[in-house]
């Protein structure tokens, strides 16, 4: 049975997911431009290539679940419906940013969406997520906590220490480990030993602590949805922590530490990648999860190319307005630096 036909993936879900993926993609592409124009300083990380993980995965959550994420958070926030304008404002250090400009790209928080604390320290959130799960369990709220980490985070001792506690205390926490190292210059390679991780497959590590763990293709939105929704159900039933590793292929635009946009993503690119420079073309053809999703939707007849192109245009427009909003937002007053130290 074609997964597209499955009852739980309605046409609306498909279209909405596609819309959010395109939103993320254009958000990041535009962001790279903003950086290149000098609108903000500092190091940053984009979510391009991982859209088909974050969007379906986070669609499985309840509105009040707790979500902890990392330096690579933009896609997660947008997947949950964060306003791109306020995100840009944050990344540009403006007053209208989610964190009033105090956090920046690494730390975008949006508590009303469940993003209480976003850490730029690799491994920093792993115990925090278990803690939020502990609180949910103690308070019997029915919430779960989601811990969104990269493959590299498993190299930090915080990971096994937290897995141990989550397992012993049967905490309602989902570890979603986005392994973006496949074939790229990244770290863990999924099925084989990398230069930095002797444990492979990575799912072996949580399994040692008796946490059920599985792998899924993170470029296949429907597969991600299926696995995450099933696992979230188990967690809500009180079965304790669960671990999912997703594989994506590292976007070649991020090979250097300062990303470049080889081509602006469009619906047409899904069928003809020739607009992408030679060296990036393969990725857009074979590994781009957004383009793959677009093709799947069209092939399944859930939407036409033209309909998706319309959605894409709306996304481009929304991002455009978001960037303008952020650029128009003033910098915070210097004295603002002295507030929010203590609650």
């Amino acid at each position, binding site marked *: 049975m074609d997964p597209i036909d499955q009852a739980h993936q309605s046409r609306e879900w498909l279209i909405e997911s596609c819309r959010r993926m395109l939103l993320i993609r254009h958000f990041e592409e535009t962001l790279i431009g903003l950086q290149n124009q000098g609108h903000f300083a500092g190091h940053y990380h984009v979510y391009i290539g991982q859209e088909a993980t974050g969007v379906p995965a986070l669609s499985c959550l309840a509105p009040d679940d707790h979500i902890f994420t990392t330096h690579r958070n933009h896609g997660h926030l947008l997947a949950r419906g964060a306003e791109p304008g306020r995100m840009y404002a944050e990344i540009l250090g403006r007053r209208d940013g989610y964190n009033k400009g105090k956090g920046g790209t690494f730390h975008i928080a949006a508590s009303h969406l469940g993003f209480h604390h976003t850490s730029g320290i690799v491994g920093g959130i792993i*115990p*925090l997520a*278990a803690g939020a799960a502990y609180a949910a369990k103690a*308070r019997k709220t029915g919430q779960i906590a989601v811990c969104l980490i990269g493959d590299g985070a498993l190299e930090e001792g915080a990971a096994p220490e937290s897995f141990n506690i989550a397992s012993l205390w049967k905490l309602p926490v989902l570890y979603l480990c986005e392994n973006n190292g496949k074939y790229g210059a990244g770290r863990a390679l999924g099925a084989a030993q990398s230069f930095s991780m002797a444990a492979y497959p990575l799912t072996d590590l949580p399994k040692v602590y008796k946490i059920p763990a599985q792998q899924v293709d993170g470029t296949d939105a429907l597969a991600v949805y299926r696995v995450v929704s099933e696992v979230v159900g188990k967690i809500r039933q009180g079965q304790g922590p669960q671990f999912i590793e997703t594989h994506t292929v590292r976007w070649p635009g991020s090979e250097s530490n300062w990303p470049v946009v080889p081509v602006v993503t469009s619906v047409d690119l899904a069928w003809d990648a020739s607009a992408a420079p030679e060296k990036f073309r393969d990725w857009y053809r074979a590994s781009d999860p957004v383009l793959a999703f677009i093709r799947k939707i069209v092939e399944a007849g859930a939407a036409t190319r033209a309909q998706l192109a319309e959605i894409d245009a709306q996304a481009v427009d929304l991002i455009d307005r978001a960037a303008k909003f952020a650029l128009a937002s003033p910098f915070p007053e210097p004295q603002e630096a002295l507030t929010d130290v203590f609650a």
Partner: protein
Amino acid sequence: MRELAYYEAKLEGLREILAADERVHFITEIATGFLGLSPHRVHFRQIASSFPDRVIAPPISELAFCGVAIGAAMAGLRPIVDLITASFAFEAWPQIVNEAANAFYMSGGQTRAPVVFHLLHGLRGAGAAQHSHSPQAMLWNCPGLKIVLPSSPRDVKGLLKTAAASDSPTVFIDHVLLFEYRGSVPENDEAIPFGQAEIKRSGADVTVVATSLMVQRSLAVAERLAKDGIQVEVVDPRTIVPLDFDTIMGSVEKTGRVVVVDECHQSCGVAAELVARIAEAGFDKLKAPIRRVVTLDVPIPFSPRLEEFVSPSEARIAEAIRAAAR
């Protein structure tokens, strides 16, 4: 008012806090937590068994279990988490100084982390280099943490209550050598606000600013020096974040002579900051250089003779006060 031993007041405070607020959970090793290896630890075990779902023993994973407490605080609980020996806080350093301390600020005021870290600091006798730390200076260098240093039965109970009710991450730093001190503790619930120094003893000649166990040690010295005609005023900040600098300066203006007594190592210790602030604000008022009595800048030796030699002992406190009074 009734008299209690310090450890009794501390236990009473914890029991009342746990009874009053279901959101308080205490992560600690049941056998040696809260009161450390003191002989009174059996009483803590009784509290633990009164609240079996809320007093919980973690693995030896300080980094993770502190992070769990912080995360739980972000999600609606008010956890107290016990590092027991303050030196073990280093294992959890990234969570305390880089997650908890920054959470409220970094989120632009969105996320509160009302967690209390409980630590037993200082030279406890034979703790040697790895179990004798006083990390309050390092922590004071991390804006975002409230820091509590009780020194009397009444303070330990009252400050513990305020810590448990605080909306900001709070480091509660205690000292096992205080446990036997006795003092009056009001019957009725009395929380002590943060940021209120207490003049533990009045005197016109020399101001001693002291924290934690050093308050008691300074008081003992002050009694002795009174017989020699030196009237010592002992000011106990009780919390260094927030710091009640006004009360300190009030005393400095009165005496013009200051000794700061603190158990951190000298360099960049709590005393260094107090001296720096007093020297700046009191430039015109000081009649003698400010003196520090602190732990000498060497790792803590095991042998009791050596430990005594490097510590801010009564002998060294007395000497500094005499020098200041001259």
